[in-house]
């Protein structure tokens, strides 16, 4: 089996994110592999362990994004590719999907492409389905359980209404949610291997692509409206607290 896992580098979720001079700033917080993508890597590695496969991690980004790939390699991916091109300074999800689908085609005969459910930065959650659509692959998003038996993929999807069971043939694109199970930590041997890995860089020319044209553009970024909240502390015996609080909540007319 030939497996691709797509990852992204993002600011750590504990970072204090704010708008600074019209740009998004995250202070000195580290850039890390998107936490959701670690579940994608884990699912790819478990598929490799059960079926036998090579797993290639791909990211699009600047040179620093190599660190996200090294994390994936240290977890156990076999190789990694960085897609880096100055023409990719601004992208939308459609452009990202075009690039990733071109990379999957170039790798040739890929059976499965794994993603995390969304980036913790843009919160779009669109790229897995869009990549599937461009490739003509089955799209199995939000998977919490993944099984492959007798040529059929069987997943449980975490939807709003419960765990939906969906099947498809290969090739397929999947996005993996947290219910899948904790991603493994990089092993000591894995970290050593990743630190020595030579990661090839593909440009748009390598993918045979012209610079894609994003249709979604950002006009402005803003800090969210500040919430001036003065917390009113309610005290007394439990019974007194309950009576006062219930009265206040009913007066807010939110029920």
């Amino acid at each position: 089996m030939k497996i691709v896992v797509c990852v992204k580098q993002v600011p750590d979720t504990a970072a204090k994110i704010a708008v600074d001079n019209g740009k998004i700033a995250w202070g000195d917080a580290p850039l890390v592999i998107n936490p959701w993508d670690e579940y994608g890597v884990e699912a790819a590695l478990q598929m490799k362990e059960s079926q036998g496969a090579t797993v290639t991690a791909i990211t699009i980004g600047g040179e620093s994004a190599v660190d996200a790939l090294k994390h994936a390699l240290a977890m156990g991916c076999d190789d990694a590719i960085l897609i880096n091109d100055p023409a990719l300074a601004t992208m939308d999800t459609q452009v990202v999907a075009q690039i990733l689908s071109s990379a999957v085609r170039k790798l040739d005969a890929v059976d499965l492409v794994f993603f995390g459910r969304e980036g913790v930065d843009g919160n779009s959650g669109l790229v897995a389905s869009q990549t599937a659509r461009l490739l003509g692959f089955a799209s199995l998003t939000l998977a919490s359980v993944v099984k492959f038996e007798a040529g059929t993929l069987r997943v449980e999807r975490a939807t709003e209404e419960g765990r939906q069971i969906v099947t498809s043939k290969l090739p397929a694109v999947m996005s993996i949610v947290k219910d899948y199970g904790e991603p493994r930590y990089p092993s000591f041997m894995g970290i050593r291997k990743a630190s020595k890995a030579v990661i090839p860089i593909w440009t748009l020319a390598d993918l045979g692509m012209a610079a894609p044209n994003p249709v979604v553009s950002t006009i402005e970024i803003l800090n969210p409206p500040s919430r001036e909240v003065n917390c009113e502390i309610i005290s007394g015996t439990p019974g007194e607290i309950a009576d006062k609080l219930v009265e206040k909540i009913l007066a807010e007319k939110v029920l």
Partner: protein
Amino acid sequence: MNIWVFIDHFKGTALPTSWEAVGTAKSLGATVTGLVLGSGVEALAKQAFEYGADSVFLSDDVALTDFRAEVFSATIAAAGADRPDAIILPTNSRGRELAAMLAIDLKSGVLVDVTGLELAGDRLIVTRPIYSGKIMQKEMCSAKPQIVTLRGRAFPKPAQTDGKTGEIRNIPAKLEALTTVEGYATSDGGVSLADAGVIVSGGRGVSNNPSLQPPAGLDEKAAEIWRAQQGFKLVGDLSSVLGAAMGASRAAVDAGYIPYSHQVGQTGKVVSPDLYIACGISGAIQHLAGMRSSKVIVAINKDADAPIFKVARYGVVGDLFTVLPAITEAFKQKLGK
């Protein structure tokens, strides 16, 4: 301006956000076409008119019984030679995936999880939260149709006008399926977090009731989970009196107290109910990112310095195991339950 609105439903019951989307499209002065796909769903077309749709594209086919994004996208993409200026869908698992595929099939782009919308000529300028609401971003789409998913409860639900009707056009289903829906392994009976007007959430603190004696024979971890389950019972009691959805912090989910589907926060669900009651939740930045846009926040925590009090309108510094049952009882009496 012509806008198509995807009338999302689960087994024939429309999502409230579908009607919010119809109302939003009408408020832009658009001619609105409802997209009703499914099996035995003609009643939804009737409802779409009553909520404001001018016409409906109906694809009623047993093959559309289960939502499958690739089938629905192909059907909608083939629905009319006259493409609309915009297509609006709800932001949920179906709406997001369908929007994603429509953008590929119709060579356009998606403005996802929108909480604010204005019109500049025939362009939609949308506002949407990114970084789980730590930042707001204004965006537009230069191609057409502009595909937009609306966050639930961010826009008002329009009034329903009984008996209003319109023209229904039947659209053939495009059966280019790549997936098969086999059914449901489990089905969550409770109120969905995204649609909930009231959420009661529990955190790590719910496992700290010192007066509880776990059954004999449990090891330390099992005893902790048993304690937590007793604590979440109190959260659940208040939830059911208020008709609320039950939420949880990441710490509670990671500790195994409650399934992930209840997690509120940056790596869970982002919610904005009218009332959010946080019990035993200290308020990590990732949790606050997921609930701080709630209208009224109530925090119950034994630590007066917990960050949750910085976003709360009302706070109780105290023991949730005595306060929570008292609040549940008081609501029962006041609400006549």
